């Protein structure tokens, strides 16, 4: 069974993105093992002369390295991903490169009707940057709008149509992960390129 790391893209105690990932975790428990990872205890990303990376980031990187894929659920703050998530991704590409060629599925929940669509579009570009170079599942989008009303008291999604869509997407993601495992010829070079990316000064 595939093992996935699910990153909660919010540092709030109450987060519908966390609720959503918890739903995925239980809903797909027969198809994959999903482990939730929190970013809320990471400090704000800062470059330093000695390229210090916090222990916690190193630990998350290790877990991502070992996983078959990553699921990210992002809220949307000001048309983009939260600074907390942006900061976490910066730590996770600062001299360490766990995301290179790693299959990633992007999801997101928002209180309004748009379901974090702009944040997800930016996240796609971010994950595509040379320092991260993740393998983002193409042509897929899962937007959970009106997320405060989306779950029932058991934490399950109420909208049957949304569940059908999510089931389909997750199946595709499993396929994508399998295909990705065979697309590894450039992996060594890709890792090296990411490592060579210059970070010394803003």
């Amino acid at each position: 069974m595939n093992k996935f790391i699910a990153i909660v893209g919010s540092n709030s105690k109450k987060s519908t993105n966390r609720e959503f990932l918890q739903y995925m975790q239980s809903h797909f428990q027969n198809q994959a093992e999903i482990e939730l990872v929190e970013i809320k205890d990471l400090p704000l990303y800062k470059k330093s002369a000695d390229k210090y990376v916090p222990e916690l980031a190193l630990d998350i990187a290790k877990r991502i390295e070992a996983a078959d894929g990553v699921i990210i659920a992002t809220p949307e703050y000001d048309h983009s991903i939260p600074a907390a998530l942006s900061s976490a991704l910066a730590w996770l590409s600062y001299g360490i490169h766990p995301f290179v060629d790693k299959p990633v599925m992007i999801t997101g929940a928002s209180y309004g009707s748009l379901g974090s669509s702009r944040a997800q579009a930016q996240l796609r570009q971010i994950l595509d940057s040379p320092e991260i170079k993740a393998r983002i599942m193409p042509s897929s989008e899962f937007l959970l709008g009106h997320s405060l009303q989306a779950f029932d008291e058991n934490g399950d999604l109420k909208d049957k149509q949304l569940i059908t869509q999510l089931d389909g997407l997750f199946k595709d993601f499993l396929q994508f992960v399998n295909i990705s495992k065979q697309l590894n010829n450039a992996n060594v070079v890709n890792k090296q390129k990411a490592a060579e990316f210059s970070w010394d000064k803003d």
Partner: protein
Amino acid sequence: MKLVGIAGSIADQSYNRTLLKFIAKHSQGIADIEVLDINAVPMFSQDDDQTNSEVIQNLSKKISDADGVIIATPEHNHTVPAALKNVIEWLSYEIHPFDGKPVMIVGASYHTQGSSRAQLHLRQILEAPGVNAIVLPGNEFLLGDVKTAFDENGDLKDKRTVNFLQTTLQKFIKFAKVINMIDKTSDYEDEDLSASNKTDTTVEGVDMNDENWLDKAAKKVNAVEGDTYVKLDSGLLTVNQINYLLKTTPIELTYVDENNQFIYYNRFLPTDKMLAKRTPAQVGDSLEAVHPGKERVIKHVKQVLNTLRNGETDLVSMPVPGNDADHHVMHYYKAMHDEEGNYKGVNEWAIDLKPIVNEYLKATGQKLVPDPDNKIDATSGASKKPTEAVETKPEVDATSGASEH
């Protein structure tokens, strides 16, 4: 024009900060640019709202007070640094200092891209409804290959780049003027007569409306008094001497600061003899407290203050109601500004012009007669035209003075 610059980096060394400092240095004379520091801003979290912390309030105030903002962004992971996004999140959560604010984006990076993608993301972020900044369209300034771009003094080496930057900056200054004009509220209702917004000279920790505000506030700021010298812009006087001078100035003077707090009047007459009645206990009051419950007066005060604050005029003058043949009391409200042109409050003075007119008539051998062409209703208020016309008496030689006879 007053601008603030934000370098979107908290790294110890930052080319984008260097770029901003260069812009600040290079624009002396056309704009005053203060580069803000975002290093101490905590991580944004809805669970731990630090909107009221000093660092965020300070940034917010600097941005609110500025005519425009220049943001220099590096690029991390194809986007703006988390530290920059973090600041914008704080400044779009409970407070919105960017709302309607003209913003120019610049950026520097190592490679040929010059932060192009980060700048596009930043545009989207600044357009978000919670931020609602007005970003200068076009005029992208991308500084690529930044490692070799500056000389040892932090100056850009390439002349064409400097010229381009200069042109862009000039366009931004025009843009900011236009945007600020569009955005400027002419709604006098916004004038806060309760003086709750405080300004840099507001004495905190003392109730404004306290009867002993003067003594308490003076103690709080360790105000000098008596024979202590005060250096003025064209003289050196002791506090006592300043008092002597003001108390013998035969015009009732009142100082209202930019926060609409009444902080001084030159008490040379007892209250009941004053044209515009003031009491020592009122000193320090908010304008609201000075005009309790007078709806119509308050509306008028707000209109006058707003006109002066917005710079529509520097002087509002009006005769007070109830003038008669023996009195023509005028109130003048003059906007005060600091060296940089920032509004600093109102110098209000009240004076009876009739004794002066009488003196003039006596000295020149003239008298007042009604003007047959008069179109002014002399009894109504706020008129900028004189309410009485002076006509020369033909039988007196008005051109020669008494000493020449």
